[in-house]
């Protein structure tokens, strides 16, 4: 039996009321709110957070592949799955792949993972998605898109939902697209886009699946498929195929928005959170064609430890109604430059040499005195763990690797820095102590300055520390945040 063995999801903390866009531009008011990535989040960090949720309690060393599906990769040439594999400290022989190009890459990646496990070339593959698409200011798209991600682990042991079959359709159509250099979604006139695209092709794939496996709408507990940017088209698909409205998984338009290639998988996670053993789920996704799957939930689902998934992340939120913050965080406007020193040029050598220290938060522990050590002390050169000599006991060459990820931590001291250049001022910096020893300083993100206190528990979150425009480098690191 091959199928889903674990799942996870991530929705950024911030939601922006759609009213904020309407207040700015007028036009047609769209109700509800959408999720909005913090300034230090992108598709990679969102997919990483989703994958962390999915891997809770599981050993990344046992994963044979990591596929990252997105249409908003920060790089055109440079793998992002390898960033995550390094952060997870996966095996060197892990198969990594970024899948991109259309909004159904989440399910395309899942199908590829499924085929690999079924064929016996891998035992377990992690598929993670993350999206931060943008509509141009004053258009409907900036209101209807959202940011988020989800991940599923596929394997052949401990399957919580087996994949019993699949069916795909390929369809050449430039109804909605972003060309090289486009920051914002482009779309053709929407009646044609939906009538010839989503509303025709998605039912074709769903019907094709049901016909192939001799299934009918009544066989399914849930039908899970993504919504287009015009969410009204969503329910019509199920209705046209004679599914009951109660069978249709909510596309989260009112509280998240359209998260592109991540949406279908996020909805699947939400469905699995409610699923019972024996449930059949029809899962499909559209984008230049469509993929459809037939899933069977197993009794193993009851054994999966709780994930934050969709449910918790929906509840854990901070809603804003401020279009200026949106423009600033998504870097849509050119703002006045802070009168601060220029960003130091990134050394690719340092980025490579210290990749495990930076991405995996690996420090050291002295084998003689047992002191865990990681130095990220602001203002002092030579970040990263100490080199060769233990300052506690002076032992030389007695360090062993020690990973600080997943350790509980508490704030020892902090500041809210108004002088530092931050898109979310003041810049909150925390010095934290890890359970079991070790101290380091990190930026704190997604916090309300008033809630930050000495002694407060924090967790680590994977974020983009900076983008170096001179060298075109995106540098990822860990920050602290209040526990979500």
């Amino acid at each position: 039996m091959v199928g889903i063995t674990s799942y996870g999801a991530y929705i950024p903390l911030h939601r922006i009321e759609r009213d904020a866009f309407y207040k700015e531009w007028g036009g047609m008011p769209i109700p509800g709110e959408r999720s909005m990535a913090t300034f230090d989040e992108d598709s990679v960090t969102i997919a990483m957070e989703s994958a962390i949720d999915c891997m809770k309690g599981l050993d990344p060393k046992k994963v044979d592949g990591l596929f990252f599906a997105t249409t908003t990769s920060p790089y055109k040439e440079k793998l992002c799955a390898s960033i995550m594999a390094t952060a997870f400290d996966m095996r060197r022989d892990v198969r990594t792949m970024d899948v991109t190009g259309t909004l159904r890459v989440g399910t395309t990646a899942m199908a590829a993972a499924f085929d690999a496990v079924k064929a016996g070339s891998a035992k377990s593959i992690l598929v993670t998605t993350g999206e931060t698409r943008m509509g141009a200011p004053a258009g409907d798209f900036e209101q209807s898109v959202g940011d988020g991600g989800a991940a599923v682990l596929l394997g052949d042991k401990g399957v919580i939902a087996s994949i019993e079959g699949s069916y795909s359709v390929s369809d050449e159509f430039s109804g909605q697209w972003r060309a090289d250099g486009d920051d914002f979604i482009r779309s053709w006139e929407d009646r044609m886009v939906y009538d010839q695209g989503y509303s025709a092709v998605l039912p074709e794939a769903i019907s094709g699946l049901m016909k192939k496996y001799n299934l009918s709408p009544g066989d399914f507990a849930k039908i899970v498929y993504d919504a287009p940017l015009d969410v009204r088209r969503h329910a019509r698909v199920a209705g046209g195929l004679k599914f009951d409205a109660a069978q249709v998984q909510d596309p989260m338009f009112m509280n998240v928005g359209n998260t592109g290639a991540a949406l279908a998988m996020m909805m699947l996670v939400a469905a699995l959170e409610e699923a019972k053993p024996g449930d059949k789920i029809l899962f499909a996704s559209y984008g230049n064609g469509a993929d459809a799957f037939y899933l069977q939930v197993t009794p193993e689902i009851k054994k999966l430890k709780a994930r934050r998934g969709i449910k918790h992340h929906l509840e854990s939120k901070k809603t804003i109604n401020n279009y200026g913050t949106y423009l600033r965080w998504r870097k849509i406007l050119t703002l006045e430059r802070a009168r601060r020193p220029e960003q130091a040029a990134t050394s690719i050598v340092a980025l490579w040499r210290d990749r495990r220290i930076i991405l995996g938060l690996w420090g050291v522990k002295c084998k003689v005195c047992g002191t865990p050590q990681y130095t990220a002390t602001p203002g002092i050169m030579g970040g990263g763990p100490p080199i060769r000599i233990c300052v506690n006991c002076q032992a030389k060459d007695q360090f062993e690797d020690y990973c600080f990820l997943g350790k509980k931590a508490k704030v020892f001291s902090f500041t809210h820095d108004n002088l530092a250049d931050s898109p979310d001022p003041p810049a909150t910096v925390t010095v934290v102590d890890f359970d079991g020893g070790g101290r380091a300083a990190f930026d704190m993100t997604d916090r309300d300055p008033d809630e930050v206190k000495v002694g407060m528990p924090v967790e680590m979150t994977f974020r983009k520390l900076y983008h170096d425009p001179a060298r075109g480098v995106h540098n990822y690191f860990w920050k602290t945040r209040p526990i979500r």
Partner: protein
Amino acid sequence: MPEGIKDKVAIIGMGCTRFGERWESSGGDLMVEAFTECIEDAGIEKKDIDTAYWGACFPMQGLSGLPLAQLLKLPFIGVTHVENYCATGTEALRAATYAVASGAADIALALGVEKLKDTGYGGLPAMGGMGGAEALLMPNSTAPGLFAMMATGYFSKYNIPPDQGKRVIGRVSWKSHQNGVKNPKAHLRREVTMEQIVNAPIVAWPLGLFDCCGVSDGSAAAIVVRAEEAKKFRPDPVYIKALQIAISSGEEQIYTDYDYAHVETGYRAGIRVYKEAGVKNPRKEISMAELHDCFSITETVTYEDLQFSPRGRAGEDIEAGFFDLEGDLPVQPDGGLKCFGHPIGASGLRMVYEMYKQLQGKAGPRQIKDPKLGLTHNMGGFPPGNVIAVCIVGQ
């Protein structure tokens, strides 16, 4: 313990520019200005100088011995550039002191300079060049932010409510403003009220604008000779009683038991400097001090690190006016970094300049009555990792 430097070297001349926003002056102008006052004060000629050490923390003035040699047109003597963060000026003095004490030179020049206002922004330039790992994992913070975490730590350790804590450290700055007004060479010369201080905009919580020192341009210089030669040059030379530097080993960054409520290097340098100078009771024996008040919290914890006040109780002395100009142990009689200003590489020598003038009875309206020992203290870096220089001078 080595024998130490006590009474082996004397300062026979000093110079210090007006600190401030010296838009019209280059770093070189400032260096020549400080040197000119210094050599006139010493009553020697340039050709008498055997060797020179000059310091700047940032490379705007250039590196190597060349900038000083070519600015002053020094005649092919040995000139070395030194750097040790905010202790750079004292480091130059230490090098010159060791040069004459060893007999390798008879007369040595120490000079410090910084031209911070040529950068285009309020704070300090970036410390590093092309980044190693530090740029890839350091939090986004500024010098005020890094020291603010010591205020958070101090308030937390001693259970001081932040509002009350801000008044305690604010009183430190209030005192320095009182003194700075009296100093024509100071950068910031105006009295401020406690209400202005505690209600000022927050720079990095809990530090407000008046908890932060001036960022300034300036230069200061000293001429040193062996002690036994000093009276040949002037009747009132000032003797170096002790000069110690201490550098963090890294343990404050790595251990979880560093409290962010003191500066370990400051405490250790203090112990060594008192031993070298033969000071048994610093609170009683030190007549006056210039401490590194880059931020008000730094001066506050330094009172405790240097054993002027018991741990956790500096606030009582601050409130009682113990460190005011009229108090038992006046601190920052010249206004301190807070008001005299802080051109990094010049500050150590600027502090010694004030002690030198006070000991000679030439401090004008700031004159402290009959001082015996003056202490200067520099701190470069940040609370969990720093360099400290402490110097004691006397007659």
